[in-house]
């Protein structure tokens, strides 16, 4: 029994910060991000006996959080405003406010969802293409292509030479 508690605590201490950052960039709201992380760990406790390996547990947690976020859209349809939220939201206090960081975040925000999510999983979660493929249920090659294109799109956006939609349509 103690072992389960210790393992759960190690998951929380090891991954809550990474999960929070991933959640935040999925929903861009601090309150919702914390709720998503809380709910993800609540689910992980129920499945703790199946999560005996840290690396596998990490993928499970990110995958669960992703599903929790998707479930949010099933319950309500949040109104999307494509305005530059960084200009108005206090949620962005304390993050890197240099122009190049702002430009990167803008570039990521403009990515189509199917490109943004694998890139966030790679950059924030440290997952390989194969891990991500297993998490989002598509082939590894497709993930590789999406990540490759996402990075190109970000780079082009930074250089001001393209918009995100063009490569996505290819």
């Amino acid at each position, binding site marked *: 029994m103690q072992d389960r*508690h210790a393992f759960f605590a190690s*998951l*929380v201490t090891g991954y809550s*910060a990474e999960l929070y950052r991933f959640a935040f*960039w999925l929903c861009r709201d*601090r309150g919702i991000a914390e709720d998503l992380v809380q709910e993800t760990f609540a689910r992980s406790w129920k499945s703790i006996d199946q999560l005996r390996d840290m690396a596998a547990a990490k993928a499970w947690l990110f995958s669960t959080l992703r599903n929790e976020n998707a479930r949010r859209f099933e319950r309500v349809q949040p109104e999307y405003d494509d305005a530059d939220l960084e200009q108005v939201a206090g949620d962005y206090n304390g993050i*890197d406010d240099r122009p190049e960081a702002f430009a*990167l975040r803008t570039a990521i925000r403009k990515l189509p969802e199917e490109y943004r999510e694998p890139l966030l999983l*790679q950059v924030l979660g440290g997952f390989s*293409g194969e891990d991500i493929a297993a998490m989002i249920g598509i082939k590894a090659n497709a993930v590789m292509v999406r990540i490759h294109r996402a990075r190109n799109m970000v780079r082009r956006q930074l250089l001001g030479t393209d918009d995100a939609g063009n490569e996505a349509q290819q």
Partner: protein
Amino acid sequence: MNCEEFRNAYAAARPRVPAELEAHRRWCRACADFATHEDQLDRQLVQALNVEVPEGLADRILQRNVNARVRRLGTWHFAAAAALVALVSASLMIGSWTDRREFRNDIVTALNEQPLPRVQDALLADAEVAELLRGVGVSYRSGLVSVRLARRCQVRGTEAVYLVVQANGTDASVLVMPELSVDDRVEISGDGWQGAIVRCPKGSMAITGLSDQAVASVEANMRAATNML
């Protein structure tokens, strides 16, 4: 593997870059430059997306877990369960409460006390490195890191392993500290060297090298090579 294949694969393969890609990177200057730009983009993305984590998040998650279980078990379990979680989290989250500066100074001191490899030192066999890491409870996957020197040491009274590994043609130092936790990444630097103490689910690692690129490369490889993801 040709250069086009390398470039298509490298960006998407990160952070666990297969040995085949690393090999291509070592001998192809143009692809090495490409990979350096990719690494740089990674670092920029991580920094740009590094939103502050709410203080006490982990504590609140643990507490909620206690509360949920207490509701199921009945109130008489509350004191014992809360004490248990407090005890577990206290032992696992020392880093959260440790003074960050003091911790950083101790790590730098520990690194400074370690020997440097001699020029004539050859690469160590993977089995030797694996055995040493196994001694501190860390498993090791061979073929991902080139180690020139490895020794057991103590950091803050805990067992650790000091490694000197090759990265991008230079040496980088690594302290594997499975019993010491930090709550987040701590950057460290000195005269002519860069480094970081990085959080791992199982303790932490300190990595120093001559450049950010070397440190990032070693970090990625060490995470892939050990069970300290």
